[in-house]
């Protein structure tokens, strides 16, 4: 039962064509998803959509799912979320940081609808937040990158300078520095989540400036493709992008929302749903790694696997001290670590990251 709605945004005109097709009323409950990108981005949104499909599969004819893709963050998303709520959806997942305030606003007007907002920090009676500790994956990637680089320069294609992205950059920097003290991280911000051309151009610029490993926090496989054609390494984002870059992809950080979506949708249906905040990592299965590239030497694979195991069982904390901020001042002393509150609001670089953080 594939229901496709397209809410497309236009740069110049705020005209959006949203077709809302309502199903025939029956025993099935409606579950809504709001995506920031197209389901075919093969990254972030694609993984959320797999989660939606998992819900359909697990709950069968008890639910009917709807999604709206390519919804622009900000005011336009409020319209889309409200439309879903008004249309009788029982639970609505809004899957991008920028949907935070619109989600809360609509949630106030529809107290009987449950809302789940990904990667945000504001909650309400009927609004939960959920996110994954992607930085755990990035920490493992940082170890591999630190070992694999020949130029000691890691290029990082950033989307927007928000804590989520900065945390990832810092996790990579800390891990890479721990195995390679001479490492430099060069960051290029493209100020978009999704623009294959621009993401690819940013990767090219980084490679031209000496980077031989390309990491990204944007949603298309374009940077990997550039890495493949230029003969450098890269790491897939959000899903396994190996077939775009069979030689270049070292591994990929995979988001897995399937279990969470099934569990929360069930809770909404049987009335046990409560507002909560979940931040799962390796342990919960929300963050996974794609198979390692066979070109990675055995000792590096071993290091990566040990790191992953240690993070999973809690014996290794990626943001444990001592380490310094970019300006050399102490961020955390030996023996302590950053708590989740600091991590969620992270707005500074650690030592080893080049360039100034845009504010």
């Amino acid at each position, binding site marked *: 039962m594939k229901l496709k709605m397209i809410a497309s945004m236009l740069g110049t005109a705020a*005209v959006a064509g949203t077709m809302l097709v309502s199903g025939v009323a029956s025993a099935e409950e409606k579950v809504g998803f709001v995506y920031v990108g197209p389901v075919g981005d093969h990254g972030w949104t694609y993984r959320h959509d797999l989660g939606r499909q998992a819900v359909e599969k697990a709950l069968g004819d008890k639910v009917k799912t709807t999604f709206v893709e390519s919804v622009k963050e900000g005011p336009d998303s409020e319209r889309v979320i409200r439309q879903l709520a008004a249309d009788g959806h029982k639970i609505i997942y809004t899957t991008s940081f920028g949907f935070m305030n619109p989600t809360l606003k609509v949630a106030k007007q529809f107290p009987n609808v449950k809302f789940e907002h990904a990667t945000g920090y504001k909650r309400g009676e009927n609004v939960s937040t959920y996110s994954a500790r992607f930085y755990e994956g990035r920490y493992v990637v940082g170890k591999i990158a630190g070992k694999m680089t020949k130029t000691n320069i890691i290029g990082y294609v950033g989307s927007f300078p928000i804590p989520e992205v900065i945390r990832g950059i810092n996790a990579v920097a800390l891990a890479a520095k721990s195995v390679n003290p001479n490492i430099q991280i*060069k960051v290029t*911000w493209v100020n978009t989540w999704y623009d294959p051309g621009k993401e690819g151009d940013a990767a090219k*610029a980084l490679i031209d400036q000496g980077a031989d490993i390309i990491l990204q926090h944007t949603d*298309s*496989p374009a940077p990997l493709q550039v890495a493949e054609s230029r003969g450098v390494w890269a790491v897939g984002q959000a899903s396994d992008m190996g077939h775009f870059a069979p030689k270049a992809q070292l591994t990929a950080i995979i988001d897995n929302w399937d279990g969470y979506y099934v569990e929360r949708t069930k809770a909404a249906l049987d009335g046990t749903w409560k507002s909560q905040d979940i931040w799962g990592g390796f342990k919960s299965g929300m963050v996974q790694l794609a198979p390692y590239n066979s070109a990675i030497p055995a000792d590096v694979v071993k290091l990566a696997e040990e790191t992953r195991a240690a993070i999973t069982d809690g014996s290794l904390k990626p943001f444990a001290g001592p380490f310094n901020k970019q300006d050399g001042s102490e961020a955390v002393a030996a023996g302590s670590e950053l708590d989740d509150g600091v991590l969620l609001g992270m707005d500074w670089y650690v030592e080893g990251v080049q360039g100034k953080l845009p504010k």
Partner: protein
Amino acid sequence: MNGFEWFIPVILTVITAATPLVFAGIGELVTEKSGVLNLGIEGMMIVGAVAAFITATLTGNYLLAVVVAALSGAFMAFLFGILTLSLMANQVATGLALTLFGIGLSALIGQDFVGEPVQAIAKLNIGGLSDLPVIGPILFGQDPLVYLSFLMVFLVSWFLFKTKAGLILRAVGDSHDAAHSIGYSVIGIRYAAVMFGGAMSGIGGAYLSLAYTPMWAENMTAGRGWIALALIVFATWKPGLVLVGAYMFGGITILQLHAQAAGLDIPSQILSMLPYLATIVVLVVISKDESRIRKHAPACIGKIFHPAA
């Protein structure tokens, strides 16, 4: 070696960033010169992108892929023509609808091709020439579409200003009633111009999915159609300036990425804004000189032609 080495990759990247804009821009220029404003460039580009990608994946024939992209773009433009030229619908609204339609349609037909990489279109390699230092890779090492984009600018310029047919097309754009009264088929000429614009947009899209980022992803034009539209005003409807504008736009985009990677202490948001800012500044500057706009802007742009009147 000679200090210019670092510059080559920058220029190569600028060329790939500018080429889709050149195609879409030069096509829309012809459309607008005939007096039709088609805001559906983005939609025609994205349909061209998906058509080219599917054809290349299924047949492996890149020439065919580009031809199919051009035909699909022209077909989209034909739909626009039916609505605006024959049925006299509002051009602005129809153009916007065409963009929405194109984005949705391309997503639908491209569904099974998401995540399938394709070989990038082959670059030219003329023995010794392409290996020359500095100018070799820039002048003789591009893919065929880049050369085609320059050729098209030249041909359009020649056609519009050196041929009788071009004069007629401009006459239709400047005063459709006058052109009609001396016996030219305004609607027919406009159909041709609109479909040429669509074909060029389609090829611009093909460049995205076959050369720029050789893959198919929904919405991969990411607003380039709108930039192409702005370029035409920027160029005051002169083909050569469309080329200059596209390369300036591409150049600033790429340079700001390099500036960031080099750790230049400028906020990245401002750098990202630069290309758009430059466009606005130029628009303001040229708008002050009214004669410039008046001399080149088609007087009948966007106006519906009623043959009976």
